Structure formats: C-alpha cells, structure tokens
C-alpha cells in the first residue's frame, strides 16, 4: 500500500505543476476578458502558433532555444494586437455573443490554416530534460521549470498591475469604462496594450508547453476549453479566482487520470465545472451575485 501512496503523491505533485501552467494560460485570457469584456475563444490557437514558432526556429533555422522563446513571445503578442484590431474592434459594440463567435471563427481558421501550412504531423522540439528524482518520486524538469516560470511570470504581472500607472488603469477600466477619458486614459489604447500582454502570455505559455507536448494543429483544443473553464470557474476577470481554479482543475485531471484514465480526468473536470456553474455562477471567489 505504501508504494501506492507514493505514486498518488507523485500524481498530486504533477497536478500542482500542471496547475501552475494552466493558471498562467488562464491569466492571459482573464486579463483580456477583464479589460476588453471579450473572450478569446481562439486563445489556445495563438499558443499553438507560438509552439510552431519555437519548433521551426530551433529545428529548421537552428536558433538557440531561448532566442526562439523570445521570438515566439513577441510574435504571438503581435498576433494578439492584430486579432484585436482586425477582428475584435469591429464587433466591440455589437452583441456580446458575436464577439464569442468571431473568435470561434478565428479558432476554426487558425487551426485549419495551421494544418495547411504545417501538416497534421505531431512535431517535437526534441529538447529532453532529466527528471528530478526524490526517493521514489520522479518529476520531469521540463514540468518543474514550466511551473516555476509560470509562477515568476504571474508575480511579475501582479507587480505590474499593482505598481504601475498602466497596470492600475488596466485594473480600473473594468470597474468604470465610461469615465476613463476624464482621468486621461484612452480606452482604445489600453485595449491594445492588454491585447499585447494577453498575446505575450499566450506566447509564454507556448514556450512552456512546447517542452512537454508535441505540437500539432489541433493542440489548441486540448488546452483551449480547459482554459475557458478555469477562467469562468474563477469568475471571469477575477485573476486570483482563476489561479485557484487552475489548481483545482489540474488536480481533478491528474487524480482522475491516476485512478481511471486521463479522459476520465477531463470528464470529471468538465462535469465539476458544469456543477459549479449552478452552485456558484459568479465564480468560486465571487460574492453573492
């Protein structure tokens, strides 16, 4: 029985590491929602493009891994801005559901275009990292470093939001859009900045995931729905809630996968999401309505 518990512990730890990455992914989406009031359904597809960027820059062009990471972050960030300017801005004043649908269209578009451009093969950057071995538990460094990087990124983002003028404005805008010009803030410019940051976070997420997973055009579907659920569960726009929800989700998937099969982990996570929507529609940290 003791060995059994060790494996469970390893599962839980793996869940924590996965939770860290998931929290980072959710953070970008949450920021976008909080500020612009739009859900980027194609968020994980931006990440997919970042993963391909890293793959091609390192494999085909022989770039240094970290240079490729930097390039991926910049490129996805620019894509985020383009997405906002070309797709979101024209529907900013139409019904909220239209905003969901245009980004849904972008999901289909980006996934299919990636299939055209890159083919359906699974690709791997081929960076293998050793595992951290603690007694009978072994945790891959790729996961540990990803979770740590995610954590550092989240702290930096928090400091930015808390300590800078721009960060304060980003937090303020969701609380009262109408008076922003009175304090000298142009909402349009804040939307652009936020889209750039959200894109950069997706790019960073891509860098962290590319070390652990193969890239393929449909990889967004493995992470996208999960990321929305985490955001909604945490209360859209509520970053702390999203953080907690990410760890709950990661544990459900990890432990569900340990006892049954990874798909059952997903079933549990999504079913939990649906139930929670009825119990606490305002998110796990939200007050009463």
């Amino acid at each position: 029985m003791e060995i059994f518990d060790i494996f469970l512990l390893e599962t839980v730890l793996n869940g924590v590491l996965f939770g860290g990455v998931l929290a980072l992914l959710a953070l970008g989406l949450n920021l976008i929602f909080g500020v612009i009031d739009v859900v980027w359904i194609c968020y994980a597809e931006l990440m997919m493009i970042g993963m391909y960027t890293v793959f091609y820059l390192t494999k085909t062009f022989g770039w240094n891994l970290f240079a490729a990471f930097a390039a991926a972050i910049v490129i996805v960030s620019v894509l985020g801005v383009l997405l906002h300017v070309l797709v979101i801005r024209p529907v900013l004043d139409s019904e909220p559901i239209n905003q969901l649908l245009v980004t849904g269209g972008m999901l289909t578009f980006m996934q299919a275009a990636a299939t055209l451009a890159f083919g359906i093969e699974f690709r791997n950057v081929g960076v293998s990292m050793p595992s951290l071995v603690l007694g009978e538990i072994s945790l891959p460094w790729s996961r540990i470093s990803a979770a740590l990087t995610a954590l550092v990124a989240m702290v930096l983002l928090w400091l930015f939001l808390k300590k800078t003028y721009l960060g304060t404005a980003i937090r303020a805008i969701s609380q009262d859009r109408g008076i922003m010009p009175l304090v000298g803030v142009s909402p349009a410019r804040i939307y652009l900045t936020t889209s750039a940051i959200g894109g950069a976070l997706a790019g960073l997420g891509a860098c962290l995931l590319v070390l652990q997973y193969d890239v393929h055009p449909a990889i967004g579907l493995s992470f996208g729905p999960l990321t929305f659920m985490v955001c909604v569960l945490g209360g859209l726009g509520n970053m702390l809630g999203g953080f907690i929800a990410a760890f709950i989700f990661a544990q459900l998937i990890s432990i569900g996968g340990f006892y049954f099969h990874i798909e059952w982990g997903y079933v549990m996570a999504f079913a939990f999401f649906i139930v929670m929507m009825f119990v606490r529609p305002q998110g796990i940290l939200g007050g009463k309505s």
Partner: protein
Amino acid sequence: MSAMLELKNVSAGYGTFQALFDVTLSVNAGEAVAVIGPNGAGKTTLLRAISKLINVKSGDIAFEGRSLATVEPHRIIELGLSQVPEHRRLFPRLTVEENLRMGAYMEAARPKFAQRLEMVYALFPRMKERRHQMAGTMSGGEQQMCAIGRALMSGPKLLLLDEPSAGLAPVIVQSIFDLMRKIRAEGYTVMIVEQNVRQVLKVVDRAYLLEVGRIKASGSAAELLASDEIQKAYVGL
C-alpha cells in the same frame, strides 16, 4: 481679459434628443461659477460636453482661447480641465490611493504625484486614514472627498464639479459645501453644477440658471439669490 472657459452657442444632446440649446457662458480665471437649475435641465450634459464625453452639435467650447473641437477626450485633462463626475464614479475596487493615482495618470502629472498626494491628504486628512481602503466601501461623503481629490491630482487649472451634493445625507451636504470653500481658498477656478441652489449660491461668485437646456438668467450670486424668480422656484420658503 479673455475668459478661461468660454462656451459660445453650444447645442448638444444624445442621438436625436437635444439637451442643450445655444448655451453661452464663461468662467474667468480665479472665479467660482455655478450652473443651477432643476433636474433634467441639461446641467450634466453641459459638463459632459465640456469634457468631450459627448460631442457638441453646434457652437464652440474654448479653453484658454483654444477651441476644444479637435482635442481627443482623454487629452482634455492635459489642458488643465478636470472633472468630478456625477455620482462620483470612483473605481470601487481600487484603494483610495490607487484612485488618486489614476487622477495623476497623465504624463505631466506623474512626477508630481508624491507632492500632490500630500496636498490632497492635507486637504482631506480622512483620505490619508483610509488610503488603503477600497473606495467602494466608504461612505458617500468620503467618496466625494476622494473623487475631488482624484480630480485635483492632475493639478487642474479649472475644476468642474457635477452635483457634488447629490445623494448625500443633509449633514454631509453641509460639509461638502464647506469643502468647496476650502478648495476655493486654495485658489482653484471652479465651475459647479448644482441643484442645491441656496447652498451653492453662498459659495460661488456668479451663477447661470439653466432650464430645459437654455440659459434663463445669469448674474452675481447675490443678485440671483435676491431675485424673486430664484427665490420662489428654487430656494423655497
């Protein structure tokens, strides 16, 4: 001497609804001017037009001799025009100090943030006590102080106040008007829009009476306070 703020034949409204007709008024440097009138007279629309939250249909608004027609809304504050909006409109989930920081958002105000923060705290010691409190959890009077403080953080030449006494308990209303005097004493040029005619006329130098979107009367505060029309319609008794 040309006026600091000058409105010439301004008409404005929302969609097909016109709220202001041919409004002409001015505020000189160092003055305190009130625009009084009943609910729905167009007072808030007037301030929204000055701050460019809505566009004017015709006429012109000039500040220090410069027309505001081509100025972007978020650049108005950079010219030295700062507005305390109706219902205060603080950011409820930011702290008092963060709200004040938003008031100093424009580039020119940032280096003077610490200095002006001290100034605002000196003016409203209560705000210093509450600086880490979420603005939304404070009482109405305290929120009004915070909103005025936020508007002062940009170091404005002209302070626009939209119904500072609205929605506040009578005791608090009194203290808000005391505050107005304090701000005047600091040397700010002020334009106040108010329904509380009797109180506001004790604070300002001049006033305009706005009814159904048109200026109906104007004059010194003392003249208006003495006029029969104002006495009957607004001051009561």
